[in-house]
């Protein structure tokens, strides 16, 4: 099944055509496909069943870790490592520690959100086969692309191209590796 190309790509000139094409390809049974658009399209997520991702869970963990580190650091410094007796007040003065705990929670959660997003997307990725299609430069301007990848079990270079042609694209091109 391993073909020498990455996949076949159809170009559309409006988002509605892309969404209905993506839906049609899913209905046809294709699973290894991706759509490319110059802005986020929520309906595309529906069409390609992309709504769940692990990022919120990662961010929650990041926030909890950050908050714990923040509080533990202050507790360690103020109670164990460098205790300062201020008029006999308790060393473990937790209300004063809340602010830095909060800031560290936000900091770690935000760092997790950004690096988690990059990780889940597999970025940075300087090279990708789709960039071999000259017209793909318009994917960041005003064109919408649907790519069916060659490792899809139903993929057949000729048949898949013909199928994409039926969806009313501007152009169908093959994506070299």
């Amino acid at each position, binding site marked *: 099944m391993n073909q020498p190309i990455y996949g076949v790509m159809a170009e559309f000139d409006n*988002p509605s055509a892309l969404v209905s094409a993506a839906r049609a390809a899913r209905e046809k049974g294709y699973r290894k496909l991706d759509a490319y658009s*110059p802005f*986020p399209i929520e309906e595309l997520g529906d069409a*390609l069943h992309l709504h769940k*991702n692990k990022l919120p869970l990662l961010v929650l963990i990041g926030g909890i870790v950050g908050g714990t580190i923040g509080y533990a650091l202050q507790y360690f410094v103020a109670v164990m490592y460098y205790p300062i007796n201020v008029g006999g007040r308790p060393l473990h003065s937790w209300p004063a520690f809340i602010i830095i705990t909060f800031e560290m929670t936000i900091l770690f959660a935000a760092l997790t959100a950004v690096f988690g*997003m990059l990780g889940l*997307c597999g970025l940075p990725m300087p090279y990708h086969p789709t960039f071999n299609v000259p017209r793909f430069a318009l994917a960041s301007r005003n064109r919408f692309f649907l790519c069916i990848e060659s490792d899809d079990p139903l993929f057949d270079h000729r048949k898949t191209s013909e199928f994409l042609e039926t969806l009313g694209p501007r152009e169908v091109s093959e994506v070299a590796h």
Partner: protein
Amino acid sequence: MAKDQQVLDSPESKQIIAPGYTFGTVTDQIASVVLTKKTPYVVMGTFAVAMGLLLIFLLAVALLFTKGLGVWGLRGPTMWAWDITNFVWWVGIGHAGTLISAILLLLNQQWRNSINRFAEAMTIFAVACAGMFPILHLGRPWLMYWLFPYPNTMGIEPNFRSPLIWDVFAVSTYATVSLLFWYVGLMPDLATLRDRSEHRALKVTYGILAMGWRGSAKHWAVYETASLLLAGLATPLVLSVHTVVSFDFTVGIVPGWHSTFFPPYFVAGAIYSGFAMVLALAIPLRSVYGLKGLITDKHLDNAAKVMMATGLIVGYSYIMEAFSAWYGGNVYEQAAMWNRMTGPYKYQYWVLIACNVIAPNALWFKKVRANSVVLFIWSLIVLVGMWLERFVIIVASLAQDNLPSSWRVFESTRWDWATYLGTIGLFLFLFMLFIRLLPMISIFEVRTLLPQAKIKEDSRR
């Protein structure tokens, strides 16, 4: 973001973006500001002025390092004056950027989409300017890393019960999160610039910065989640930062500072001055670059309304400040308030009342909000008023504190002026570089506002 494209359909609201744009034209119009070789003379002129002020800043800082803090007008009992005033002023200005990018995103206010990018840039540069002052005020700024807890041979650690350490954590977290949020928002647009630029070096530079973004639906899904999560995290953060800034004062027992309503009062003032700065930047920018179709009068109108609303909160706070000083029955608080109104800083106090309480009421009138020249002047008035507010709170309280024998009126020096104007230069310098090198309006978010972006579902569904 901006998943819900109903705004353009709703009949009662005016369109956010002028009609007639397509995905291609918004892209080209915004990208051309960066990719053209022509820079308007106004921008070059402003850049030159900013560069001049930046050099003055370097001179002032060099003098400060060689001679010490005495070059500023700091004499007991006023041991922090302009530096902390400037710090609070700059941090406050930054807050409008986060408000626009985070809070208005969560509230699904789509008019933010064409002003959020440069407002976020404003945040980052304002925080950079703000960060200068506490560091310069340390006396030995090269030892600023002592503020952070790290294992050291001196065997000492920072005191986590001090608001000044809270400030270190709050402001550095704020700067980091703002920078990340801004960069994440830039990634799709950097990809646009990579694909649009013709010069090889530009392609490579923008390509590296875009990290290989290709607009994949799988990526957009994660990206949208990340944006919402970052907005959700930045919202409490921005409120906490100015709260912590106000703790620098309220935790102290100086009369005029020791008050529980400082946090909300400071946050409102921050957003007030920040929206003034947004207007002061947006109005000239859209004229110079012909972007009135993207930053429309509707945007200015909305920003002016936010400015007025927060201005009224600030005005209310002034009244409550005077009322609680009087009603609280503490003679020191009463004296501090009375000194503010009638003492050596009475001119500053009454000018700030005029700028912050009386002037914003002009914004009730639609004619005022519709006139961009008047709005520009009004935003400068607000910026001056908010600077004076911090000056009066800080200096008037310190100069006449609990011990009359130590009272002394603060006199600013030319180096106070040079440092302050210098940071304005630094801010403008960074901002001019930003509008020349990066898209100042979020291209992909503006695309979502176009009527064409709405998906027309076929009946097969």
